[in-house]
C-alpha cells in the first residue's frame, strides 16, 4: 500500500476543488432566488445552500454519496429504482458483449496472422467499423435484431422451463451485447495481431529446424508469447464493452440499466440521480479493469514474463 498517501492526497485535493466548484456553479440559482424574494444572502448561507440543493448544477460529493446509499442499500434489489438492479442490467450486457467481442477478436487475429488474404482485407474494415458513431448504429442494431426475433438471452418459454421465470436482465440482452462486442473487439484484434507476431526470427527459425507445422508454432510459441498483449487489449476491450452497453441502453426498451438511469435523470432534471448513476458506472468500470489487472499479474508471474 505504498500508494496510499499519494492517492489520499490527490483525492483530498480533488474534494477541495469539487466543493469549491459546487459553491460557484450552484450559486447563480441561490442568487436568483434571493433576488426574487428581495433578500440578501450571506456567504455561509450561500455555501450551506449550494451544498444541499434538490437539483444542483454540480452536486456536492456528500449528496452523491447519500443518493448512492439510498439507491443501493436502502432499496430492494428488485426495485426499479435500485442502482444494484440497474447495475446488474448493465453488467450483464457488458460481460456478455465482452466475451463475444474478445472471442471474435482473437479469432480474427488468428486469421489475420495465418492467412494473407485476411491480413490484407480485414484490417481496413475493422478500422472503418470503429469510425462509425455508435450512437447512430445502436438503434439500428436493436431494430434489426428484434425483427429477426433475437433479443432475449433465453426466450420467455425457455427461461421459464429452466428457472421458473424469465429474469429481467435476459430480456433484450442480445442487442446490447452485440453493441458492447462491437466496441470491444477492435482493441483485441489489434493487440493480438501484434502479440501473435511478437516472436523474433530466431525463435521462428528454431521451430523451422524442427519442421513444426503452423498450428504447432501457434500453440507452442505464438499464443504464449501474446499473453502480455492480450491482457492489455482486454483492459481496453472491457472499458469499451461497458461504454457500448451503456450507449445501447439509451435506445432499448424498456429503459433499464445505468445508462437509462442517466437518461431518465436528465428527462426529469434529477441531476443527483445522473451523477449517482455516473459514479456507479465509473466504479463498475474500475472494478472490472482492476480484476483483469489482477488476473494479468498472476498469469504473467506464473509464465515468467513479469520479472
Amino acid at each position: 500500500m505504498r500508494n496510499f498517501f499519494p492517492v489520499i492526497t490527490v483525492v483530498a485535493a480533488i474534494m477541495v476543488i469539487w466543493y469549491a466548484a459546487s459553491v460557484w456553479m450552484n450559486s447563480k440559482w441561490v442568487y436568483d432566488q434571493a433576488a426574487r424574494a428581495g433578500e440578501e444572502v450571506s456567504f455561509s448561507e450561500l455555501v450551506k445552500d449550494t451544498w444541499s440543493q434538490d437539483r444542483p448544477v454540480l452536486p456536492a460529493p456528500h449528496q452523491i454519496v447519500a443518493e448512492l446509499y439510498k439507491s443501493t442499500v436502502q432499496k430492494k434489489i428488485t426495485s426499479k429504482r435500485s442502482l444494484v438492479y440497474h447495475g446488474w442490467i448493465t453488467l450483464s450486457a457488458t460481460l456478455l458483449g465482452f466475451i463475444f467481442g474478445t472471442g471474435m477478436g482473437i479469432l480474427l487475429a488468428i486469421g489475420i496472422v495465418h492467412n494473407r488474404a485476411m491480413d490484407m482485407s480485414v484490417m481496413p474494415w475493422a478500422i472503418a467499423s470503429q469510425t462509425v458513431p455508435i450512437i447512430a448504429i445502436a438503434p439500428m442494431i436493436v431494430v434489426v435484431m428484434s425483427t429477426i426475433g433475437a433479443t432475449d438471452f433465453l426466450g420467455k418459454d425457455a427461461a421459464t422451463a429452466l428457472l421458473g421465470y424469465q429474469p429481467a436482465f435476459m430480456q433484450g440482452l442480445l442487442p446490447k451485447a452485440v453493441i458492447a462486442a462491437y466496441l470491444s473487439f477492435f482493441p483485441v484484434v489489434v493487440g493480438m495481431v501484434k502479440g501473435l507476431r511478437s516472436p523474433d526470427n530466431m525463435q521462428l527459425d528454431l521451430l523451422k529446424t524442427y519442421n513444426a507445422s503452423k498450428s504447432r508454432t501457434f500453440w507452442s510459441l505464438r499464443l504464449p508469447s501474446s499473453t502480455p498483449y492480450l491482457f492489455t487489449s482486454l483492459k481496453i476491450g472491457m472499458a469499451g464493452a461497458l461504454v457500448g452497453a451503456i450507449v445501447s441502453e439509451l435506445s432499448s426498451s424498456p429503459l433499464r440499466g445505468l445508462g437509462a438511469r442517466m437518461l431518465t435523470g436528465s428527462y426529469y432534471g434529477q441531476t443527483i440521480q445522473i451523477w449517482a448513476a455516473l459514479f456507479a458506472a465509473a466504479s463498475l468500470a474500475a472494478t472490472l479493469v482492476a480484476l483483469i489487472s489482477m488476473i494479468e499479474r498472476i498469469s504473467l508471474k506464473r509464465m515468467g514474463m513479469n520479472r
Partner: protein
Amino acid sequence: MTTETVIKAENLDLTFHTNDGDVHALKDINLDIQKGDFVSFIGPSGCGKTTFLRTIASLETPTAGSVCVNGMSAEEARKKRAYGYVFQAAGLYPWRTIRGNIRLPLEIMGFPKKDQEDHISKVLDLVDLRGFGKKYPWQLSGGMQQRASIARALAFDAEILLMDEPFGALDEIVRDHLNEQLLQLWDRTNKTICFVTHSIPEAVYLSTKIVVMSPRPGRISDVIESTLPRERPLDIRDTQEFLDIAHRVREGLRAGHAYDE
C-alpha cells in the same frame, strides 16, 4: 572410423538481393564433412560462416550449387529433422521449465510420452544440469541457459549438431568450462558437429578440421586438418603444436584479407 560424407557442399553460391545492391555472401564453396568430424568455421564478421551454416540447415536457399546432408537435399534433411541447431542466444521459453523447454522438440516431433522423460533426463545428464530440470530459465545463469539450449538440440538424437557461436555471449572462464564439456559430449555421443566461432583458440582447441573463411565475397580460404589428439585437456593450448595450428589459422585469415581495413 567410418569416412562417410554427411555434409557435402558443391560449388555453393549465395547472393542476397538487397535494395542497396547485391551482397555476395558465399562464392564457390566446396567442402566435405565426414561423420564424426568436429568442424569449426572461423573468419571475420561478414565472411559468410553463419550464412553457410544456415544453408546447411536449409534456413537459407543457395542461388547456385548444392548442399547435400545425409545424401539428400538440405530441405529434405530439415524436414526429416536430421540436425539440432544451437543459436547464439539460448532462446528458451520463459513460460516453460528447463525440462519443458527440452521437451519442446520431442512434443513437436511426436515422441511418445513415456520416452520423452527418459530422453530429457539423459540429455540433462549429458550437459551436467541434472538438478535443474524443474527450474525456470531466468533462474539459471547465462552459461547454464546455453547448456540447456544445447541439451534441447541433443534431445531428439539427431546425428548432426549445428552451432552458431553458442558461447559468444559468455565470459572466458565459463567458455573454457563449456569447451571442455562440449568435447566430452562429442566424445561420448560421436555426433558430427559444425561450429561457427570468432575465437581462434576455441576453433583450434575444439576441432578436428578448421575451415578458415574470408569476406567479400565469402569463400573458403583454407581447410586445416588438425593434428592434435582426440583426447585434449585444456593445457594442450600451451603446447607448440597448438600454437603452430593457431599460427596457420592466422595465416589463412591474413591471406583472406581479414586483417585489412
